[in-house]
């Protein structure tokens, strides 16, 4: 039946809950586009026949194919748009640099969208308040305490805190650091908040 491949695309995204991004299904999209091309060409020739030979019994079929075309367009758009929303969430979750595993799941145009989005967001954040701006991707949770205990999950090298002290972030080392400095590293998985 027509539009099955398109609906499958939607189901594929629906299955991956939690905002995960599956690999870009280029194959399925190509198949849907081919189906659309075939439907359109069949309609074109039927429309010509109906006009020149007055075969008005072709009209329901033409309408049916048109509905399928619209449905395919809608499904593809929904699939692509939902992926964009998931990609957008990645900027807020991981920061400007995406993990390579995720990047492999994105097509070139999605990468381009992501880069443009990053730029727009950065421009906007820089303009806040009229001076240096404000990084609103920080401070995602209300501050509960000034300093937090963190454990280092991977080697991250040297890390400087406000008063000039340099800390060496070695795997498994534990530190008592200012909360606002650690937020992004915690989200990236470099540090882990130790709640005693």
């Amino acid at each position, binding site marked *: 039946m027509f539009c099955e491949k398109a609906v499958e695309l939607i189901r594929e995204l629906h299955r991956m809950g939690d905002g995960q991004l599956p690999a870009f299904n280029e194959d399925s*999209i190509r198949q849907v*586009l081919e189906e*659309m*091309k075939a439907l*359109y060409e069949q309609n074109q020739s039927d429309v010509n026949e109906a006009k020149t030979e007055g075969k008005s019994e072709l009209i329901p079929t033409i309408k049916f194919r048109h509905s399928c*075309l*619209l449905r395919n*367009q809608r499904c*593809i*758009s929904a699939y*692509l*748009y939902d992926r*964009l929303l998931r990609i*957008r969430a990645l900027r807020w979750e991981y920061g400007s640099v995406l993990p390579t595993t995720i990047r492999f799941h994105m*097509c070139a*145009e*999605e990468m*381009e*969208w992501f880069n*443009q*989005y990053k730029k*727009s*967001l950065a*421009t*906007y954040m820089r*303009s*806040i*308040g*009229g*001076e240096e701006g*404000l990084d*609103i991707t*920080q*401070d*995602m*949770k*209300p*501050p509960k305490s*000034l300093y937090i205990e963190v454990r280092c999950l991977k080697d991250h090298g040297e890390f400087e805190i406000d*008063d000039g002290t340099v800390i060496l972030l070695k795997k498994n080392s534990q530190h008592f650091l200012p*909360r*606002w400095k650690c937020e992004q590293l915690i989200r990236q998985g470099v540090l882990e908040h130790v709640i005693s």
Partner: protein
Amino acid sequence: MADGLSDASDLSGGEESQEDVMTPAELIAKLEEAWLNEKFSPELLENKSELVECVMEQLTHMEENLQRVRKGDMKASVHRMEIDRIRFVLSSYLRSRLQKIERFFPHVLEKEKSRADGDPSFLSPEEFAFAKEYLANTEVYLRNVALKHMPPNLQSIDMLKAVPEPCLDSFVFLRVKERQENILVEPETDEQREYVVDLDEGSQHLMRYRTIAPLVSSGAVQLI
């Protein structure tokens, strides 16, 4: 927190004033009101650029003064916490707005385009630029990946129809700040008829956003 701030005004040595003179405590109270309203409202509210600018200036002052305080002084950590809290509220407020702009981008842009010259703006100039870029970025993406490969009569999508509008009929909790009389409430079921309520100062209600939307922008009610 108001106490901590009046302490801070000793440190900050006077506040910035634009037209009205507002104490730092009043400024932060206004920020929190705007933050809660934006958080709980289903649609994007009027932009408060002046408020944002004042808060940023306040934060800069507080940071500068914090540098001058002796290290290890107890007051420093309390003020540090305060700065972090204010920054969190401000960030959360701006994030709420940005999320709504992204979610409803064609409608937000349409609303801004069709507003009369005298009406207050819903988007700051920077938010407007961001929204336009978001629209362009998304349209270019959809066109390049799929639309341009589709049959000629299907190569465009009406964004206003494709992207859902904010649901103004969602229910919100509110607290009344200024007494309101004769608010018309729409019937919920077929058996009901529309009726009129008076909202007493200090009372709290759960109502459809659409009914009280103008009261939120006028400041007569506070969403909670």
